[in-house]
């Protein structure tokens, strides 16, 4: 059953078409990843799904409830970690959790236990009476995730949950998130900038410029960018090259003193190559397509925000300008 169903959703802010005919279906108990460059419309979609924005046109239902008409039922069914922090920094971790427990009408007799459990789950129990001001970015993020789960939602929205975290906190948070469907029976709908993180998703949609340009499992998407690439260093590149070409009947190219070939089944090719060219092999490495490759192919740009350069912004500006211009 699809627990999230989005049909032809569009949202216009003045002249800016933030999202355009977006359709998404998410199965219950899965992790869905929503990827796209800055300004693609990810947060806008999430804001509509969690009833904070109304769409210009289209329809969205969550757990069978319409996001526009049955907003209070939708709100009960979801938990959300927004892209921007929404904690009260003057309150302690416990008080922040309590605020939400009351807002979500958790039974008073259960509040304390649930908060303690949730804080233990994200490793913040020892810090429960510290004001959030004193927390590091990663601790705040974990607290927000715990808070999003306090009322046992059926769906958890995570908008860039790992933004600004160090690699270790990111890994910890992902361990935690991937456990959610099984442990807490939650469906996860998340966005991220880090392509490697999207590997944990059961399904992914890529959005660019407000429109969805690809949907599928991570493997399906990776297949669309062609196969694996095998790089080989040998003591005699020319000889090895002809031998491999004869073996597989495919083109082998050379770059930087290294041979490389593209194939769909890289792992099973390597043994055969080694058997054929024997002791000439100095090193072999296999490069599989990553979601990052998929992303670059689909959108024509790199997603990593740390690599955003001035040309990138300029491209954006030109595109925004053109869009405005086209519309007349």
């Amino acid at each position, binding site marked *: 059953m699809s627990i999230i169903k989005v049909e032809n959703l569009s949202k216009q802010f003045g002249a800016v078409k933030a999202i355009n005919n977006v359709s998404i279906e998410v199965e219950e108990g899965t992790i869905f990843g929503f990827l796209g460059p800055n300004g693609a419309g990810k947060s806008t979609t999430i804001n509509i799904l969690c009833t904070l924005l109304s769409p210009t046109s289209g329809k969205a239902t969550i757990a069978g409830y319409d996001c526009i008409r049955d907003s209070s039922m939708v709100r009960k069914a979801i938990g959300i970690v927004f892209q921007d*922090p*929404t904690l009260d920094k003057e309150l302690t971790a416990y008080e922040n959790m*309590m605020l939400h427990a*009351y807002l979500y009408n958790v039974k008073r007799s259960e509040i304390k236990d649930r908060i303690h459990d949730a804080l233990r789950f994200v490793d913040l129990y020892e810090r429960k009476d510290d004001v959030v001001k004193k927390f590091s970015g990663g601790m705040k993020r974990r607290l927000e995730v715990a808070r999003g789960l306090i009322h046992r939602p059926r769906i958890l929205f995570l908008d860039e949950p790992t933004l600004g975290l160090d690699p270790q906190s990111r890994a910890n948070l992902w361990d935690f998130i991937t456990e959610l469907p099984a442990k807490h029976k939650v469906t996860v709908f998340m966005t991220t900038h880090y392509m490697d993180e999207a590997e944990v998703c059961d399904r992914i949609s890529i959005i660019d410029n407000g429109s969805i340009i690809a949907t599928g499992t991570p493997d399906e998407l990776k297949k669309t960018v062609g196969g694996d690439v095998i790089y080989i260093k040998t003591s005699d590149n020319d000889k090895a090259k002809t031998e491999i070409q004869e073996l597989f009947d495919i083109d082998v190219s050379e770059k930087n003193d290294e041979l490389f070939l593209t194939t769909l089944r890289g792992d099973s090719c390597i043994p055969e190559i080694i058997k054929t060219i024997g002791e000439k092999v100095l090193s072999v490495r296999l490069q599989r397509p990553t979601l990052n490759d998929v992303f670059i192919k689909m959108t024509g740009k790199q997603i990593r925000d740390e690599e955003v350069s001035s040309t990138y912004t300029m491209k954006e500006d030109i595109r925004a300008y053109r869009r405005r211009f086209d519309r007349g």
Partner: protein
Amino acid sequence: MIEANAVYVLVLRELIKFFRAKSRLITTLARPLIWLFLIGGGMSRLVSPGIGVDYMQFIFPGILGMTILFSSIFSAISIIWDKEFGLMKGILVAPVSRFSIVIGKALSGTIVSALQAVIILLLFPFLGIKLSLMSFLYVIVICLLLSFAISTLGIVIATFYESFESFSVIMNFIVMPMFFLSGAMYPVNKLPVILKVISQINPLTYGVDALKHAMLKGSDLIDFSVATDIAVLVFCSVVFTVTAGIIFERKK
């Protein structure tokens, strides 16, 4: 529909923060004290003969009104902070009606500012004002009512602003005029017509007037009847609450 749990926790949150930030209590109490003793004390030599009562006594209801005005508006305007820091989003996605949020916010402001007004009120014996127990309780009731009306007004104002750069605009163009045109520092019935009209649509005027009933008994410096004062404050509270609720409900 109003969710008791939501209202309770919003008030609780404000009280926790209020008692945690002790400096806020001191600064908000300092303002009325400065006005009372520095301005009131200084001006009293000048104006007392003209108005027939001791000037410090005359402005005391106004000083209570001022305490309430600043504290209620400040508390309501924290909604802008909440918006800027994203806290409001976290509250708005919760399954609570927008009226509960407005009521919760308004009651937070009400309790905090009435509390401060009562602290200032305790100075009355030193100013030579006599209050019976009944009058004392009456003053507290008026303080609560006025605090609620101003808090809800503050929430309506706050819904129009997205960032706290607007804070000084609100302070200079709404709060200060409201204060001066409320009869707090000087009688408004002698003002030019335009200012007098403004003072009559100013809810603070009625709160201050209601307080004067208890503190300046029988003086001709009282403009309206207690019934009028209370009716206007109740009316404003209802109108502002409903307006704020409707604005909150509207989605972008």
